[in-house]
């Protein structure tokens, strides 16, 4: 009987100690905000285009943290979906076509002689990448433009074009090699067998 009581006592004591430690750790290492949202937000392309249906990337990050699908971001494309899937340990699903297709990086270009200086695009730009004043010509700071498309619709004279950012010698990157040539798969007998096994 004594042993049982002793065991219970020891366990109670231990649980109290660990509870105290956990309680202290909870206070001491308290994390403000939701760190997962930060991580998700860091993976999103920050175009702030709103194609996901949220007013900016961070709201979408919050929505993902609350269980929204990860495939609503056309600017990020499959790469972003993959990164989000890795982060959240979920399956990488194909991009949801309802929110748009993944397109090449674009940049807004104002046909400046047609601009009437209405400042509507300036108000629409989520990253302040358009310069100009009322009744003055506007222009896009190409380096700051995220290609989000939001300035195109408000333009009353349709003088904004979304121009694909071409590959220059500076931005060019090496292609990925073809991989193991199909012909070379026949060289080794076991390779062929494994193919059959499939």
């Amino acid at each position: 009987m004594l042993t049982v009581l002793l065991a219970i006592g020891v366990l109670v004591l231990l649980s109290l100690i660990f509870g105290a430690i956990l309680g202290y750790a909870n206070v001491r290492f308290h994390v403000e905000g939701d760190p997962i949202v930060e991580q998700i937000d860091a993976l999103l392309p920050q175009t702030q285009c709103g194609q996901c249906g949220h007013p900016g990337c961070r709201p979408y990050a919050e929505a993902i943290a609350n269980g929204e699908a990860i495939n609503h971001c056309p600017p990020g494309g499959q790469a972003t979906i993959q990164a989000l899937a890795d982060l959240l340990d979920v399956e990488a699903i194909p991009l949801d076509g309802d929110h748009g297709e993944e397109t090449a990086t674009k940049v807004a270009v104002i046909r400046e002689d047609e601009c009437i200086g209405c400042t509507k695009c300036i108000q629409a730009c989520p990253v302040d990448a358009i310069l100009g004043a009322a009744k003055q010509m506007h222009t896009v700071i190409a380096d700051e433009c995220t290609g989000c498309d939001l300035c195109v619709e408000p333009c009353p004279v349709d003088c904004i074009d979304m121009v694909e950012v071409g590959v220059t010698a500076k931005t060019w990157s090496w292609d990925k090699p073809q991989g193991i040539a199909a012909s070379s798969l026949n060289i080794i007998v076991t390779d062929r067998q494994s193919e059959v096994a499939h």
Partner: protein
Amino acid sequence: MAKASTTTANIFSFHGGIHPAENKVQSLQLPLGRPNLPNELILPLGQHIGQASRPVVAVGDYVLKGQTIAVNNGFLSSHLHAPTSGTIADIEERAIAHPSGLSDLCMVIFPDHKDQWIERTPLEDWQAKPATEILEYLANMGIVGMGGAGFPTQVKLQGAHKNALKYFIINAAECEPYITADDMLIREKTQELISGIAVLQHIVNAEQVIIGIEDNKPTAIAALNALLSEQNSSIQVAVVPTKYPSGGEKQLIQLLTGQEVPSGQYPADIGVLCQNVGTCVAVHDAIFHGQPLISRFTTLTGDALKAPQNVEVLLGTPVTHLLEYAESQPDNLHRLVMGGPMMGYTLDSAAVPIVKTSNCILAATKEELPPPAPEQACIRCGMCEQACPASLLPQQLLWFSKSQEHEKAEHYNLFDCIECGACSYVCPSSIPLVQYYRHTKSAIREAREANVKSDLAKQRFEARKARQEAEAAEKEAKRLARQKASSAKPAAKTAAPKAAQSAPSATPGISDEAKKLKVDIAIGKTKLKKAQKLLLEAQENEHLEEIKSLQLKVTEQETQLASLEDQLSKLTPAPTKAEARPAVSDELKKAKVDVALIGVKLKKLNKQLEETPDDQELKEKVAGLETDLKTAQATVEKLSTDSASSPSPAAAPKAAINDELKKLKIDAAIAKAAVKKVEKALKKAEEIQAPEVDAIRQQLKEAQQRADELDKALANPQAVDTSSAPAPSSPNADTEKKRKIDLAIAKAGIKKAEKSIALLKEQGKDDAEIEASEWPKKLAEAQEKLAALENESAPAQAVEVKAEVAAPANADADKKRKIDLAIAKASIKKAEKNIALLKEQGKDDAEIDVSEWPKKLAEAQEKLTALEPNNDNSTTEKNVEKSPEPKVAESPADLAGQIKQQKIAAALAKAQINKLTKRLDSEPEAADSIQQEIAATRQKQQDAEALLAKLTHSQESL
């Protein structure tokens, strides 16, 4: 191997490396060639690492040899010079020597074949010059590293200058097969090389200067040693064994110093600077001859060339021109490579120009450079690891690259890979390892750039959001400040009723409890009204805390009022006087119904007004209905008094006089309404701190004066009437009528003028404009006329009233008293309001005392107290009518009227209940008090309904 016999430096070793066929002999058979000028020179603006240069000449400009045609475009950039004299034919996109085969912006020069130099300014006396000046000079001469990367020399030297340098290493290893350009350069320009090294050593001041050269260049080594010993120079020559890639910067440093450049660091971090021999010669040419970097040594080799050789070629010379010069055989040419076979890249087009970093053109036949064997699966043989000069794990890197595990690849130091190709060279499975690494490197770089860009976008987005929020907050703060300013007034107002409360209690001489109660009720009603008004205002402005407290106040006052009324009804004795009444005329019934109808309408409108407080139209409607209501009530009152008094033949003329009196009363009421309106306008003006406040106040005073006058006029004849005994009636009714009409017209004029002025003020016109308009004048005129008419009519009325028969005198006096009482009450209310207003305006007590209002208040209260006792008589009579007791119902007609009354009362109670329930929904915080009210009202309704049932029953029984 003539190894290390001439060297004084220790030679170390590096991991890995390979020994491919050298193939260096072919291009050394012929002496240095100097091709003639091509038809055009193509000079890409980005021949170096960093920002592309910025052109400083325009298309069509004539440029001299050595003239600067483009300048540096930032810190990591370089100048560009015309390699020969000629015309700038174009600045356009041309195919450049790049693995991508893409085009880039190039300057095209059509040579004039005069080769006319610009005036050259060598840097005299460079030994005495500070390093910075020499560096600037070198930058202006467009010197970049000529080993392969094209790093701007001045930037590299600047970086090295910061640390104390232990070794200054001259890279003459030239480890890649086929290439002999540096070998030839050393042979041809030994003296220039040594001078260039001397200049650079002067700048960097290293402890040791070592020329690292592979042992496969004996002629060059011999030439160097001969010259150095001749000059007795301290520069050492370190001959390293031939092994690819000993010419790699980090590998050569390791070979010569035994030190490894740590991952992610630069040679300068361990006190080493490395420069290519070509760069040293270019430095010499610049310093001693004032000659910018416009030409370089390039190897033309490969089995597809009949005359492989080294050439000193002007930058911008198209490769086609050189191939022609070296007698290429297009039929045999299988692959054109810029650079060596290990690290070079295939050129898609032969039209690309030679740039500052082009050290070799390899025109290979199919046998020489066969197409790569098909890639096979990695067999994990580990040969790549053996060959890697950077001590990496190529196999692992391959896996990570294939599976796009960029983080892991980085973790395995992918970026330490120098892309030498040794691993691919040794791979038995012919895996293009380097291409995988290059791809992964660019993917990682792209991701990093995208990250930087997205961070920037995020930053800008957040900055924008913060800015917008700040703007919104500022607006909100301003709005709140305005609101606070306006809500501070109602707060001051609440103090007013307290003063008013104390005032009646102070009035002495009232012994009768009922009187006191009535006064209390009146005050309570005023307070309630005020509190409701405040509540409405608060609701409009969405002041939550205020709404709560005000609601509490309202309900409190309502309950107080209810209890007071209850007390009063108990105190006032139940009407016992069962006066024989004549049948209540249909007219009276109709009038009563009218009153009820108008009351309901008014309520409805008020409710609407509550919802849309800004609706001017609605307000006007309400005002109109209020007047209608008053008229109707007056009619009812009159009729009831008529019916109360015995219908005598003399009643007819009396009724007519009553009509006139009524008109006068209505006028007085209208005047009062006008006063109220002006007061409201004043309040509004004060709220918005309009400049016309004073003018409005003036107007208010005038309006009040007029109202007082009217009151007086109204009181006068009646006073005469009550005081003087019945007198013979006067015959001059016609003139009297005319005067009255005049009076009405004058009043209408005043009203119109006032309205117009108010309208003008509302429209924000300032005083001057209003003054300029004709309205004030009209107002004054009309008021004058009115005053005159009233003076006339007062005695006349008095006479007329005197002429009345004595019979209805009682009723008349009663009514008059009531009116007086109401007037007095209104006066008190007005005075209180004005005092409150003054307080709101921040006037202190002294000022308020000085103003006429306290006096007026006292007067009005006195009047009220004087009138109250008189009123008692009338209350009894009033109670007869208002009493719910059906005892007095004797005639069926009377009964019908009472039934109707009860019906109306029940309907009203129901409406109130509805309203309260609605409020209960909208204001759950005041639920308790509202519930109480609802209960009370329900009680009332039930009472009314019970009475109604009784009455109907008695009617039926009748």
